[in-house]
């Protein structure tokens, strides 16, 4: 699995509620992800064109997000529509935020990593039909995480989609991989079917497994750093 331009999961779908914004990263680039009041997801460059404030700190009202700093309001296309300090101004269309393709699939929020692409490739995944477990943020490089996942893990994403099937001590999980940054990786973990019976037990079990996985992966990250140092030590 290589981490080039493409679709990446950046959150569990339910973790960004309608009217809520949050920050995240792909390859250390900052993104603002938010849902408008109708629940439609958006992923933008996390920077207000006015003063560079992170838009993810802002607040959503209806189908607009407003910057926390001076209240500049942007519509769902990323175009600035209202500047409170100049209420009568017809805002020039050039004031806009770069918007990335963004979709809900398989219980996760997916972002295409290139904002300039005209038509991104299809994201051929089911829209839902999964049970969310949790997002897991691991202090370790994406490539290192990939190497250290349980050996039974299988890449199930077609066309390079970063999606894994994992056997977690007998429990089947699906994880989307987010290359957050050089030294950080996020896994967005779901249960593949709507297990209504024992649902909370299954989710708890998966969440506890995930915490252990994170612990192991970070231990590995620490010890591999330590051994890298010891190799150059006199």
């Amino acid at each position: 699995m290589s981490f080039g331009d493409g679709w990446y999961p950046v959150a569990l779908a339910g973790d960004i509620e309608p009217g809520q914004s949050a920050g995240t990263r792909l390859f250390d680039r900052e993104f603002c992800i938010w849902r408008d009041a109708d629940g439609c997801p958006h992923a933008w460059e996390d920077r207000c064109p006015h003063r560079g404030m992170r838009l993810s700190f802002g607040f959503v009202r209806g189908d607009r997000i407003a910057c926390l700093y001076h209240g500049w309001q942007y519509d769902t296309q990323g175009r600035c529509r209202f500047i409170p300090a100049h209420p009568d101004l017809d805002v020039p269309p050039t004031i806009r935020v770069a918007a990335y393709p963004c979709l809900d699939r398989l219980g996760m929020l997916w972002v295409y990593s290139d904002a300039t692409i005209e038509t991104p490739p299809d994201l051929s995944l089911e829209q839902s039909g999964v049970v969310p477990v949790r997002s897991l943020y691991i202090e370790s490089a994406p490539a290192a995480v990939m190497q250290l996942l349980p050996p039974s893990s299988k890449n199930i994403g077609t066309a390079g989609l970063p999606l894994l099937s994992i056997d977690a001590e007998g429990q089947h999980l699906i994880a989307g991989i987010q290359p957050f940054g050089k030294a950080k990786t996020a896994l967005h973990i779901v249960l593949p079917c709507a297990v209504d019976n024992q649902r909370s037990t299954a989710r708890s079990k998966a969440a506890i497994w995930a915490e252990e996985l994170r612990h192991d992966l970070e231990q590995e990250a620490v010890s591999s750093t330590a051994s890298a140092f010891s190799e150059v030590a006199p």
Partner: protein
Amino acid sequence: VTELTLYDDELDDQCYKARLLFGALRRPYRKIAVDVHPGAEQRSAPFLKLNPQATLPILTENDLVLCGAEPILAYLARKYDTTRTWFPDEPETFGRIMQWLAFAVGDLRAASIARANALFECEADATAVHRASRRAFRLMDDHMIKQEFHDAAWFVGGTPTIADIALFPAIALSRDLGVDHDEYPALRRWMRRMRTIPGFITMPGIPAFH
């Protein structure tokens, strides 16, 4: 005259805990602003008589002088919460709340130190307290993820308690120390719930809009 008095610093995360509970309990009180930055008034002789630890908040009522946010939360809840929900007697709930109060003054203390270091140039090992803060926030997020699986919306059970109040300021103000909320989805949801508590108030660094 019996008057509830809070010696307070508007910018202090610990004082905010007391103000939050006063708000939620709808309890009127007298607030005395202490000049902490730059005056260091809490280290002056009259204040050291009240609290030799030279910290805020301090609560006084009649002859009682209470220092530190968590004891003040416990006292106010016991005395003025007519609903008995903020700090219930039931042993298991009581024990769990105490555990989170201990966490707030233990592991989570790093976040207060890191913030004081970032904002007010108080001395600290910036790298170490930053790391310790993130470890504490992660532990809180792990807990709330599992709470939600059992439809428990708060740190202890189905209603807000003084545990939630004691834990809220550190993560709500975490951007002051350069820690974003990106990695804590369950805490983001919980912080939104905190804002729906009747009588909720903000402080500088916690935007009224969200």
